[in-house]
């Protein structure tokens, strides 16, 4: 039995979670929200994390009812992500590990999402669509690695949505993507946008530039709701298409959607229709686990720890670039 605490702060979410043998004891989170029309920058985000991390940590410990000595391992996000916010969590994690005299373990953020999704949904060996503000990847497991079958060749889908929300000056609370989703629900008129699938890879930068360049003209014929609707329909169709392609390629009949964009209900609905048409099953989680959180880091760390992975204290660093397939999956034998 492994009791693990996880610190997550690779982007604008700060989370601390505690897990014992797949049972979630605490899942606490703060989000750094910027004014409409602005994105979050590394320095300010790190500042937000610094100001909040003690409170979140205390909240998590209180919620779990555990004392630090009852923990087995301290886990934190090693990467990928923004350097400054990552290092805030890493410093606190290292300090806790020394204070409490516990081993420390750095976790790959993407692996955290995948394993959390598998835990919550009980999906066995799914094709994973990982979609967030920084990542867009189609992943499948093979020979002890989560292999990337397809991904964006430029910006992430969440980044595309967030930046379009900025063009429309939508609020960043609770998240720009959520506001686009709500507006899209009342969109009626469909606008044809560039559609860019390359094999199992996708590209979103062209769609964004197109919208940015033409926004003034577009708003003469279309409402902002129509544009949100058309954008969602187009980018999600691309995602569902490459997921289906990867499923056909790997002969897989399960899909798991993880990452912040994964809690978009329209995306889940479209993926569901695709799955139904090919006799496959869809698995998705809600915002508690889709959006970055500390539990996923604790859980992925606990799995690795239980299967024997250890990290020297000197190696408890961070990295902005850390590919999903860099991690040797020691906890799976299939």
């Amino acid at each position, binding site marked *: 039995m492994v009791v693990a605490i996880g610190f997550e702060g690779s982007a604008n979410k700060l989370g601390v979670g505690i897990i014992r043998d797949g049972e979630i004891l605490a899942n606490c989170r703060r989000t750094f929200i910027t004014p409409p029309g602005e994105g979050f920058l590394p320095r300010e985000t790190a500042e937000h994390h610094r100001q909040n991390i003690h409170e979140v940590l205390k909240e998590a410990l209180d919620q779990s009812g555990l004392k630090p000595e009852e923990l087995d391992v301290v886990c934190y996000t090693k990467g990928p992500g923004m350097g400054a916010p990552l290092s805030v969590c890493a410093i606190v994690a290292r300090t806790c590990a020394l204070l409490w005299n516990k081993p420390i373990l750095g976790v790959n*953020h993407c692996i955290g999402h995948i394993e959390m999704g598998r835990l919550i949904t009980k999906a066995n060996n799914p094709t994973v669509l990982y979609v967030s503000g920084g990542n867009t990847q189609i992943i499948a497991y093979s020979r002890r690695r989560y292999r990337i079958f397809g991904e964006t060749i430029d910006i992430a889908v969440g980044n595309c949505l967030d930046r379009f929300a900025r063009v429309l000056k939508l609020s960043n609370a609770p998240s720009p993507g959520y506001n686009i989703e709500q507006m899209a629900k009342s969109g009626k008129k469909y606008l044809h946008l560039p559609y860019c699938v390359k094999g199992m890879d996708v590209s979103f930068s062209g769609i964004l530039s197109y919208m940015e360049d033409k926004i003034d003209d577009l708003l003469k014929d279309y409402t902002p709701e129509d544009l949100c609707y058309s954008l969602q329909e187009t980018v999600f169709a691309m995602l569902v298409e490459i997921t289906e392609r990867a499923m*056909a390629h790997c002969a897989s009949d399960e899909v798991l959607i993880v990452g912040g964009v994964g809690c978009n209900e329209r995306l889940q609905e479209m993926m569901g229709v695709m799955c139904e048409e090919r006799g496959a099953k869809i698995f998705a989680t809600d915002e508690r686990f889709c959006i970055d959180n500390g539990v996923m880091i604790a859980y992925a760390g606990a799995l690795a720890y239980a299967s024997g992975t250890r990290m020297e204290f000197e190696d408890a660093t961070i990295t902005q670039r850390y590919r999903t397939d860099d991690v040797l999956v020691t906890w799976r034998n299939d």
Partner: protein
Amino acid sequence: MCEEMKLFKQGAEAKLFVCNYLGKPTLVKERFKKHYRHPALDENITKERIKNEARSIVRCKAVGVKTPSLYLVDFERRRIYMQHFEISITVKDFIIQIKKGESGDSDASLDSLARKIGETVRKLHESNIIHGDLTSSNMLLVPKNPSPNDANWTQQDIELVMIDFGLSRSDSNAEDMGVDLYVLERAIISTHNDCPNLFTQVLDAYSNIKSKKKSFNIKEVLNKFEEVRARGRKRTMVG
């Protein structure tokens, strides 16, 4: 048109049927409606891809890249009729077979396969054809002289046939060719992670064959390929 259509395979975006069309074994590729996407988008994409596929097949014929022959295009029913290779194996399955050690000299077979792939892709690019979806599932091997009993693929004279041109385009810019190579690299790495050198061999063959077209700037394409690769690998992934 054809009396009896038998479902042969269901891919990601099309159903494949086999039938007999004008006395020839025929593969019917029907791009069925995708209900998850907006009907206008679905219509658009499907028409576009049927057009791409038909055009590229014809262009390939002209430049000597082997593809199935095109028999008929039926926009109304979203179908393409083309030649069916009754004896064939996908490159993907072929590699898996080799790796299982079911045939003699696996290194030699992989070498010659890699060369074939590299040369064929180069030929496509020199003819300004961008495939758009280069994977080992979209390449077939067929015997040059088909005979009914053919258990062993490595022993005979085989040809590489390119299929699935739905995402193809006719374009002469190096960026698209770079992306094409990148897509192939990713497909090989993820699917055939037990053949770590395969793509390098393919790329060697691609880079080193004698160019038929003087104006083809191989350096530029390879540079673009490196650039696209860097974009994917070195991108910071936040969130």
